[in-house]
């Protein structure tokens, strides 16, 4: 929670933005550990379709989540240029598979907007906030709802 206080003090949120299926998403940079190039994952049996499997991250087992599948977007063509963003949150480390990393942005805290509610959407809200940077809409991902914990147990 110290991180949140820090944000309020400085007024800026630092975001890492990346592309998934032609949409620009972002994550609080504090939760990002490293960025890696794509390596072949070992698939896990009986896992949800968005879990690509596990890779070897310097001797530890890292689960890989295909973000486009997780967000219900069209599955992007698997390419060598895909990138894995390693994030750590709630004592869990996972790799998020994205199409490409774009930029690091500093967004003033008060420029973050609540995403508008559309109809009676009951699906999980993966997006926490929206903001505009140079005319592009950036979506801030809610990591907690992406983590596979509950699904992993249920599968």
């Amino acid at each position, binding site marked *: 929670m110290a991180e949140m206080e820090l944000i309020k003090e400085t007024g800026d949120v630092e975001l890492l933005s990346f592309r998934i299926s032609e949409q620009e998403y972002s994550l609080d940079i504090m939760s990002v550990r490293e960025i890696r190039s794509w390596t072949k994952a070992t698939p*896990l*049996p009986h*896992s949800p379709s968005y879990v690509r499997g596990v890779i070897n991250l310097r*001797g530890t*087992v890292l*689960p890989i989540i295909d973000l486009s599948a997780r967000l219900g977007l069209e599955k992007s063509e698997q390419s060598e240029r895909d990138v894995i963003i390693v994030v750590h949150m709630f004592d869990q480390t996972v790799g998020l598979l994205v199409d490409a990393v774009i930029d690091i942005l500093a967004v003033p805290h008060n420029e973050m907007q609540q995403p508008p509610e559309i109809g009676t959407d009951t699906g999980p809200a993966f997006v926490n906030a929206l903001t505009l940077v140079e005319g592009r809409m950036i979506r801030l991902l809610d990591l907690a709802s992406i983590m596979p914990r509950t699904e*992993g147990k249920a599968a």
Partner: protein
Amino acid sequence: MTSTDPMAEIRASFFIECEELLESLQDGLEALGSGDSDPETINIVFRAVHSIKGGAGAFGLDQLVEFAHSYETVLDGVRSGETEITPDLMRLLFQSGDILSDLVRLSRDDEPIEKSLTEATYAALKEVAGSSDEEEPEADIDFQPMGLAFDFADLAEEKNAFIITFKPEAELFTSGNEPLHLFRTLAELGNITVTCDASALPIIEDMDIAQGYLSWTLRLETDAEKTAVQEVFEFVEGLCDLKIEDDIDLPALPDLAPLEPVAETVSEAIVPLSATAPSAPAEAKTAAAPKPTVRVDLERVDRLVNLVGELVINQAMLSQSISDTGIPGSSEIATGLEEFMRLTRDIQDSVMMIRAQPIKSLFQRMSRIVRESSAAIGKDVKFVTEGENTEIDKTVIERLSDPLTHMIRNAVDHGLESNADRVAAGKPEQGIVKLSAIHRSGRVIIEISDDGAGINRPKVQQIAIEKGLIAKDTQLSDAETDNLLFAAGFSTATEVSNLSGRGVGMDVVRSAIQSLGGRISIASTPGSGTTFTISLPLTLAVMDGMVINVADQAMVVPLNSIAETLALTQNDIEQLGPNKHLVRNRDTFVPLLDLGVELGYRHALPSYEGAVVLLISQEDGSRAALVVDTIQDQRQVVIKGLEESYGRVPGVAAATILGDGQIALILDPTDIISNASLGAAPDDAPFAIAG
């Protein structure tokens, strides 16, 4: 990101220290209980309690201090010989030790301490302390007066004088001690003169700031006894050269000139000593000190284990690429690589050894369980341990605690007969529960045995029939009957006693042991007792496995679960119903499971003729033939947890990293077999990868 609170760290290390102290306390008590009246043993016990009290005082843990203090007072009585060691006293001392460890635990977890926990024992301690009318010789630093009867009368008139020579070593300073504080404490005891000897001080260029060069000579006039003076230095023992001598020549005469001349002569006498051999005493000390140890964060060890795992993988990759280039085996590169391989293996073994710990702490906990459970049901039980220095992986020790506790309780509660029954059977009244550990062929064997009546087999069968575990007319061998104890939902206690019947049966014990990669077996002789034998792997970090391929995925099957491997011929396969197959193996039928289908990797093969199967045989008697695509080889693999990073995956026990750097899953055949028997509809299952 995590801010570290230095105070919290010190507190944490205090509690770690407490655990070691409690361990030596237990050791000492056990030695005392078995008739060892060596003053050093009593001293060890006393010092352990004293150190806990001192630390607790610094952290303001008043209840702990209070209890430790009365405990210490009684122990001091024992030390001075005023309190006699009787069986009753021993019981009290043990009980107090248990409560002390409870208090330490509660204080550590910041949990409230119920008064009722300490009350009775505290009163008993005070009674003993009061009756011995013991004087407290030590210099108390920070705590409440206890209302004990102290008798200073015979000491008031005497003036003692001591010459103390004190030369700290570098470790004294690194462990956070400070001579000034010691001197201040001494000054509280009486008149003190301090002379500093700076002759060992080198010129400033040669000075190493981490070294201590100063030594001191102190003259102390005091009412206190020598022991009180020694106690001031208790916490720096072994960290300094210390001599405390009676100053006989100089009775404290009031008209004597200032004390400087005295101090000078003494310091002169001391100088040559430190001048002739400036560093020798330090070396001699370290040789005599107990085996030095370092306390290391487990996380760091695990990181090292991971790195070594990486090293092993890297080395395998290197070997692979060098043999691919066609360099002859006799070349320097090849021999150098061989040496590298050997070194890697040595490093791996040594790193695994770091995680190993003597099983002693676990055995000590069990000795408490025996004391408490035997007292609760009024049986006289002797607890014997053997091989408590046997080393085993730390995680295994932690996870053994619950199953062992349960088994020890069972041994006391059900295994041993009541005292009266024992006498009637012509046995000694005191029952024996024995716990032993030994290394045998790469595994650790732990045995829990009692000299009770043995398993009442007719009763076991009757209960099993009542609970519907076996059919009424089943004919069982003795071993089969004994194994019924492990069946789920079985408990022999006709009435739920205070001890057993906590909702855990031997089936839970067995699955706990199995989850550690262990096996448990039972042997019983009517009239002379029951023995449970647990066999465990030395470490959870490596395992022998068979590397196989299924649907282009490399996987590992634990070698100890594979009975044999077969290539199927048409004659071996029998069909049962629309899509079940059986394998005929030596005139028995084993269900055929297609691993690719069970894992959801591909559809069933059209024909299993010529397929390679692993014949799996489990200790619980379940058998299955797993169809795999190919068998690669057999090797030792480093186990990586999957549950922490992802969660439980059905049919998968863990993961490992193969020579190409890829992760391979380690399968759990038991889980695969039991999931398969649930009868999922294989054709509708989603596939992680397309066949």
